[in-house]
């Protein structure tokens, strides 16, 4: 029991911060049909991005895995703050912790108003969750876009 507690506490000491770089290469907004209501229109955003990040400092003896996720955040004109995860990856080994990824969002990116018209520009950030073998879950941010990126006008097809 004491050993478990010692291991859990040691991860606070071993904690260090990673470095990374995130660039959004293109965004498209496409009109589509809503998932639940086939007659309703729903705008979907397609975000292409590059990630390079060195997450190896996060791996120590009490790191079971990393949950890495790319999040879009924006506040709409009514003042409603939105956070949407558009991509994620689970990293289980230190050898895989140097991330180089070029691609597009994995999860549907949509706004509850079903349209991206008049939605202010969004910030994108690469965040991580360190999951231990035993102890406390910790969160952090590896990279962030330097400025907010606006949504283009809707196009009818990709």
């Amino acid at each position, binding site marked *: 029991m004491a050993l*478990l507690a010692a291991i*859990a506490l040691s991860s606070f000491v071993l904690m260090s911060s990673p470095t990374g770089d995130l660039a959004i290469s293109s965004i498209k907004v496409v009109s589509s049909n809503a*998932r*639940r209501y086939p007659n309703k229109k729903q705008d979907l955003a397609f975000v292409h991005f590059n990630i390079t990040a060195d997450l190896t400092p996060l791996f120590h003896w009490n790191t*079971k*895995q990393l*949950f890495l*996720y790319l*999040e879009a955040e924006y506040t709409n004109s*009514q*003042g*409603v*703050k*939105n*956070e*949407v*995860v558009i991509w*994620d990856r*689970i990293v*289980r080994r230190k050898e895989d912790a140097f991330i180089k990824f070029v691609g597009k969002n994995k*999860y549907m990116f949509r706004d*509850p108003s079903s349209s991206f018209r008049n939605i202010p520009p969004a910030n994108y950030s690469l*965040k991580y*969750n360190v*999951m*231990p*073998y*035993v*102890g*406390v*879950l910790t*969160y952090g941010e590896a990279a962030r876009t330097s400025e907010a990126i606006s949504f283009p006008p809707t196009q009818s097809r990709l």
Partner: protein
Amino acid sequence: MFTEELKAFKRLGFRHVLLQVLNFASVIASGLMIWKGLGIITNSESPIVVVLSGSMEPAFYRGDLLFLTNPPNELYKTGDITVYKIPGADIPIVHRVLETHDVKPKRSSKSKSKETTSSEVAANQRILTKGDNNYVDDIELYQGLEWLERKHIVGKVRGFLPYIGYVTIAMNDFPQLKYALLGGLGLLALLQRE
């Protein structure tokens, strides 16, 4: 087989048996007090839960023990792991937050105050979750709801202890084990001589 013990039991006398029963009761009561106390501190109806499914693998496996908190005026963020219980579903689900939308609380005519408190904002937050090991988000699990709301959420996972909770899963799968364990503990408590 039990003649020795029974004889010892008779020797102890009525008062002693009563004392043992009281001791036993106080052990159970203090256990319950600790559980409920933890529940009040963490603002969660069950601050410790056991993972029952594999939908969060490889982060959590069946039988892992999770420690939860549910601060009333703190918003949930993406990447947080929540435990939620949809009315009508019988077991709580442990999944990660995929989307949050901090919708402004509606102004009802009854409420006098102009300011919206942070707990009111938190209560109106809309959340979408997904299991790490599932391909799609949880909207099918919400039983017709569009979003998860704060009232459905039991808590946020803060700490993690592997495998310990498997005892409870084993007890549910093999009820005999449960009765054997309870009976054994009960007998032990009653027959202790000190």
